[in-house]
């Protein structure tokens, strides 16, 4: 595991896309407090095996998006963000295997293309908190994370950082890095 120090001035935006043909692909964008990019990491597209599909069943997305992709991406930043935001509910599962704070932001960039569901507070029974105009969700059994999320988000909102827009950048960057996902 690469070690890095937490940086209160950086935030991470993490997404996992699932395409019928190409499989799963994840992207992480680390921004500074002015929303300028500092780092970008993405995974190579990965396919699940038939045995994984059988044995993980309905928890497969959580396993691949959270425990595999999100976890591997969260190991990469040189300067660890103070929080990771995700627009992929399944990516929250990384919390099981990694202590870093991750919260799903309700809403989605209108152009997003993925077979994975976007976070919606009404449609899932997981801990949720509203801060400013946003609603954040964390993994069940980690309700205490909500307090930390609120504490971190409030100053960000004061700086008028858009917490949804960066996902559109990641989407385009993934299409640039993996052109095959563009057609999917």
């Amino acid at each position: 595991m690469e070690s890095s120090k937490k940086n209160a001035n950086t935030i991470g935006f993490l997404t996992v896309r699932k395409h019928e043909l190409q499989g799963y692909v994840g992207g992480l964008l680390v921004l500074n407090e002015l929303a300028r990019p500092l780092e970008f990491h993405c995974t190579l597209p990965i396919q699940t095996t038939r045995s994984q599909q059988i044995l993980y069943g309905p928890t497969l997305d959580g396993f691949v998006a959270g425990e595999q992709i999100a976890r591997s991406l969260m190991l990469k930043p040189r300067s660890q963000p103070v929080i990771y935001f995700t627009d992929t509910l399944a990516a929250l599962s990384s919390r099981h295997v990694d202590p870093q704070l991750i919260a799903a932001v309700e809403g989605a960039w209108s152009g997003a293309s993925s077979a994975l569901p976007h976070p919606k507070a009404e449609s899932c029974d997981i801990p949720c908190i509203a801060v400013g105009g946003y609603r954040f969700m964390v993994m069940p059994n980690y309700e205490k994370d909500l307090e930390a999320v609120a504490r971190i988000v409030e100053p960000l909102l004061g700086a008028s950082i858009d917490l949804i827009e960066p996902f559109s950048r990641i989407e385009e960057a993934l299409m640039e890095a993996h052109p095959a996902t563009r057609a999917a």
Partner: protein
Amino acid sequence: MEYQVITDEVTVQSTFFDSDRLCDIQSIDMESFSVETKDSEWLSSWNDWSELRVLPIQCSAPLPKTIGFAFPESTLWNANTLGTEPTERVIQDSTAPRETWSKNAPTKRITRIRPPGDLVRLEDRLYYLLQPPLETIVQSAKLVFPFTPFPYQMEGIAFLFSRAAAVLADEMGLGKTMQAITTIRMLLLSNELSHVLLICPKPLVTNWVREFRQWAPEIPLAVIEGDSHKRQWIWTNPQAPVKIANYELLMRDRELIDDGQLEFDLVVLDEAQRIKNRNSTTSEIVRSIPRSRSWALTGTPIENSVEDLVSIFEFLSPGYLRDDMHHKSLCQATRDYVLRRTKDKVLTDMPPKLFREADLDLSAEQRLSYRAAEEEGVVHLAELGESITIQHVFELVLRLKQICNFDPTTGTSSKLERLEADLEEVAASGQKAIIFSQWVETLDILARRLDRYHPLQYHGRIASNKRDGVIERFKSDPKCKVILMSYGAGAVGLNLQFCHYVFLFDRWWNPAIEDQAINRAHRLGVKQPVTVTRMMSVDTIEQRIHDVLEEKRQLFNSLFADNAAPRNLGLSQKEIFGLFGLSIPTAKNQKAA
């Protein structure tokens, strides 16, 4: 029975555990390894343990491989030394509900920076792709603008931001200056630039300084002027990140430029059509300046022929275009480098230009003079035989055009009569007018004859240091109803949008120059429609030239429109001779204008 369960692998398998049967299995209890299925026949065969074999199945995998890039962070963005007031544009209300991002709600406007097509490295492409929208940059850096930029201007800034070679070819009046300045400002802030050289025609230097003060007041400027010692000091002064030079001056400082000491991150050419002749000294000097980025600003990338554009590209990307390229290939090759918008496309709510064609008969005196001059001239040309040159034809054209303005003996003029009538109306309504002519002598006559309107003159014979004063007086003095301008001096860089009437007393050879002249008045900020009166004497050389001009206008439009057909380029020698029904004396067929 043989099975085992390990952390990452389930090692149970039998020959019957084929994929066709998997769908029948209801559940597998790993502790007792009991299998429930609806298929009893298959289950009975399952009990034949003698055929049981053990195969490993990989259930988990190593963490996926990743690729990553780190980008430089500019400290200037955080310095917050740019201004204290937020821009007028409200980008986002952070306390508002996030409805704008939901799938069914309308999205707010964002302008994204895109990597240019010629950028190959993934890391470089991602750098631009991952930049925040321009609106976010403006807001987070607290950039102050005198007024909110139009969406198309933000797109122009995004276009320039990522390009090492670009032509911003917006129609005059759409704010190329503001787009270039704002992009330079953002690139300076992001540390992508530190030395910028802007080259413009000499009369426009003050205009650029004024625009920089307005759009980027925090950027230190250095105008290259004065004696050679002073200029040398300014050229090499590292304190000013932006230096402004004029084309005329480059010639004098060529030695310094050729010395190789100067190097710029960006060189911007304003009115880049000035280098349309690639063999000119100005073009050679400009191309020799060491630089990383090259931008050309021009409303008329093609004045006469596609060779003009090829010449501009010799500055941007030497050898990228060729004169003999097919029209379609040229369009395709330039698509990613040239951004051109027209007012009718992007400023749909801008007051229109209203054209009035004043097709006038010559006065009786003018007609007599004209006929005599034309007959005599044509006879003279015929007598020249094989020794005739294009110059002889031009001389006759100019002489006839002058008669169309004023009769040389009596001074009568049907154009002036019409102009006087129109100006009475303009002045009575409290408006002001610009009158263009290609001759200073014509402007002098008009100044005398229109004395009651207190006309001001702006042309090549007015000293450049007095020209700003002329414009200022025209703006502020209510008595001055008319400004008389030559196409050469008044066609570029002036903002006269308070003027709603333009008269083209005679016509220029090139429609692009006429458009530039008209757009002094019809530009951003204009509040009323601009009425353009184009004067032309019917059944004269003016009408014949008009037909050629129309063809050139179509050429320009064809190159910057999709699916355009190739056009006959330029005004050929044959066409000029053809104005008088003459044929070319030799087989040589060169472009003449």
